[in-house]
């Protein structure tokens, strides 16, 4: 099958890949760009392990062709925080035991990051609803919800302090 060039902005860097039209974005991210943070749990849009952010929206990258990402701005878990300074959400998940096996975690945090952009001050119910596209088999969600609410509070108090 003929390949074509796709150019996208991934975690702030311009990246060019050669892909077949049928290749799913998740595999291109994981195998060509070696961004193995987003995972594969179902390939049917149910689990959210593959969640990344594309042009300001949460997207399940297992259900999108890489060619559809031409020109897109993509953020994966690797684009949030760094070993020297974790993102508030990453810290908060650590602090509140919001993960166990860690397989859902990159998708969870990436989704939570977008959720807090959409709704900086969510209620518990809004968090539960807003995260319902991401499945976790280990935690029972209670501590994930706690982590997200705590992160929201922290971001808000930091931005209040800045004003």
């Amino acid at each position, binding site marked *: 099958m003929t390949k074509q060039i796709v150019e996208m902005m991934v975690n702030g860097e311009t990246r060019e890949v050669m892909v*077949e039209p*049928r*290749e799913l974005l998740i*595999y291109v991210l*994981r*195998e060509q760009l070696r*961004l*193995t*943070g*987003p*995972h*594969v*749990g*179902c*390939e*049917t849009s*149910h*689990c959210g*392990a593959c969640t990344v952010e594309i042009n300001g929206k949460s997207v399940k990258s297992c259900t999108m062709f890489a060619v559809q990402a031409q020109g897109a701005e993509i953020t*994966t*878990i*690797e684009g949030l*925080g760094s*070993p020297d300074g*974790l993102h508030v*959400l*990453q810290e908060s*998940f*650590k*602090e509140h*035991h919001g*993960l*166990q*096996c*860690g*397989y*859902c*975690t*990159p998708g969870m*945090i990436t989704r939570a990051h977008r959720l807090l952009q959409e709704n900086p001050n969510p209620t518990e119910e809004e*968090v*539960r*609803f807003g*995260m*319902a*596209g*991401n*499945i*976790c*088999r*280990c*935690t*029972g*969600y*209670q*501590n*994930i*919800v706690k982590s997200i609410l705590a992160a929201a509070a922290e971001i808000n108090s930091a931005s209040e302090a800045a004003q």
Partner: protein
Amino acid sequence: MNDLTPDRDERVANLKGLGCSRKRVEDARFTQGKGNYIDDISLPGMLHGDFVRSPYAHARVKSINTDAAMALDGVVAVLTAKDLEPLSLHWMPTLAGDKQMVLADGKVLFQGQEVAFVVARDRYIAADAVELVEVEYEELPVLVDPFEALKSDVVLREDLDGQTEGAHGPRKHHNHIFTWEVGDEAGTNAVIGDADVVAEETMYYHRTHPCPLEPCGCLASMDKVNGKLTLYGTFQAPHVVRTVASLLSGIEEHNIRVVSPDIGGGFGNKVGVYPGYVCSIVASIVTGVPVKWVEDRMENLMTTAFARDYWMKGRISATRDGKITGLHCHVTADHGAFDACADPTKFPAGFMNICTGSYDIPIAYLGVDGVYTNKAPGGVSYRCSFRVTEAVYFIERMIEVLAIELNMDAAELRRINFIGKEQFPYQSALGWEYDSGDYHTAWDKALAAVDYDGLRKEQAERVEAFKRGETRTLMGIGLSFFTEIVGAGPVKNCDILGMGMFDSCEIRIHPTGSAIARLGTISQGQGHATTFAQILASEIGIPADSITIEEGDTDTAPYGLGTYGSRSTPVAGAATAMAGRKIRAKAQMIAAYLLEVHDDDVEFDVDRFVVKGAPERFKTMSEIAYAAYNQAIPGVEPGLEAVSYYDPPNMTYPFGAYVCVMDIDVDTGVTDIRRFYALDDCGTRINPMVIEGQIHGGLTEALAVAMGQEIAYDDMGNVKTGTLMDFFLPTAWEVPNYETDHTVTPSPHHPIGAKGVGESPHVGGVPCFSNAVQDAFRPFGLRHTNMPHDHWRIWKTANGLGLHDT
């Protein structure tokens, strides 16, 4: 001691040892997307494997034509049973003493069965080639019902035809696998026959699946230059996999290295040995390059590791005032096409004989018949210690049914039948020795916490309001009290493929006072790197933050039986403590030498040895570690290392009391879990934060199983729940907040008194959710209805009770 010496409490806190909610050391990697799971591993030149699978549940394979697939650019090999036969690898032994086809040998016995293995340059080409393999099938009659299978003339396992003796004794029929009996049947029947009150019930514990978020997979790499095989994979028991791989392939065990990298949840799914592993190994040997196989979700649900599928028939007898006198249980166990249950060898129905539960039942009998059907093999312990989930569901339902028969409150019925605190160690009628417990205290605490009497009052009012037509919602109060049996297990009666179920820990203290410990277990999210370091910190006085825990690489870790059945803390945790004690014993000699006193004149104090009666004279563990490497001490070898292989003297028996309050909309079947209270007693608590996380997770898996999750088949043996669209995994939206609580009854035989907790919430949770549903309908005459309680089934129950009649 001088002013600069931190006080004792501070020194204890510094260790972050037992009982501390230490934050997890794993999380920095995982939160940054830097985990290293099987599909993240990529080796140069790696090929991808994919299966051609049977669309039929039972069919003869007339021919397989691989020409078109082989002709596709990028396809390197297509393996069929014929290719594996010369290596005797077309079949493989199962953990249950049966054998299983690796690739279809003449026929297929379940939908999704592995027929051919395609090896190609990338996953897309492999998938294309799968479509190009032409298989001609001739359909055969399908048996999906175990009772029918036992009557049918259709022979499922032709390879066993005529064999009247199986791995677990005589076979009564060509589709029968084994009969397993425990207890005194005649005596039990006599007691039940003479009893004042007898309750009978048949219940089906439906087939389900552990479904961890990461499916199973492996990467086999045969290095033909040095003759070494490296196998990475999602293995809950890497050492056992190495032994099995050696026995199957003929490669000497020292030339095989098995590595379990990070595992994205296991819950029992990753205990077994699957055809994908065998095919990857063979393909790597044949091609000389690494071959990766990772199943997709549909393959996962359809072929690897189902759980449960037990038809349980019970009779329980009692005196008129509610004292239980006897229990009879018979199980028809649907094992699918091959008996691949992951149980200790001598327990073909796992620990189902813990089915007398938390109650002092003087006489009991259990009989289990295993049956072949046209369903996938498996029979794993899904977040469960070898069928204890089935056992607890059985007894907790029987108690409820008996309460109905006696017209008694089910909480009270439990209380008057609990094994008393003073009866421990308690010998159960079906052969177990319960180590410790205080059930009454736990139960009273739970009932008080939820204001049980108040709840019953509210429920009665609701029923009245419902009858008056003021509400269409009923209220259910789910109760369960469970006793788990975990930590398999004593080598004298527990083995897997002949390997005794001990576990191990090896510790090395470095000269500057930090350490590494390696274990025979493997974490799948339980946080071993965090909690085992805590056990060790308290034992050897080195801060947990200075201890690295390593597991999962058979080249470096000591041999162990792996992580499942909540055995890591009871067995490997004990090995860790024991190895730590060996370190401490040697450290004591070194300290005494350094302090110029007799060995007996120093004693351990948190992080140091002090001279008895003179605490200002001491040597810290780091000073001792340094001395171990730089001083010639008479009679003491240099270095500071220890290894312990721990053979547990008994199982451990965690227990707990759960209460669920649920509102049920009678017209839609929609449920709302208003409250869930969980009291767990897992003995000594190593890390309360981790324990609580395990409980939340286990309860959520219990909710899933009780309320909707199932692997369902139609009459043709088609799997109806092969994707996450149909297979219920709860999201944050469906899951309540849980209230957790605890009591602490240490295990008397475990070095630190810990019992294990990972599976308790699942074991106790399933009957609790189910009992809540059933309890809501009890005032309208419901005795029992089978799980899963999805909206449709609840609606049907309400409808059957006439609650929709106007």
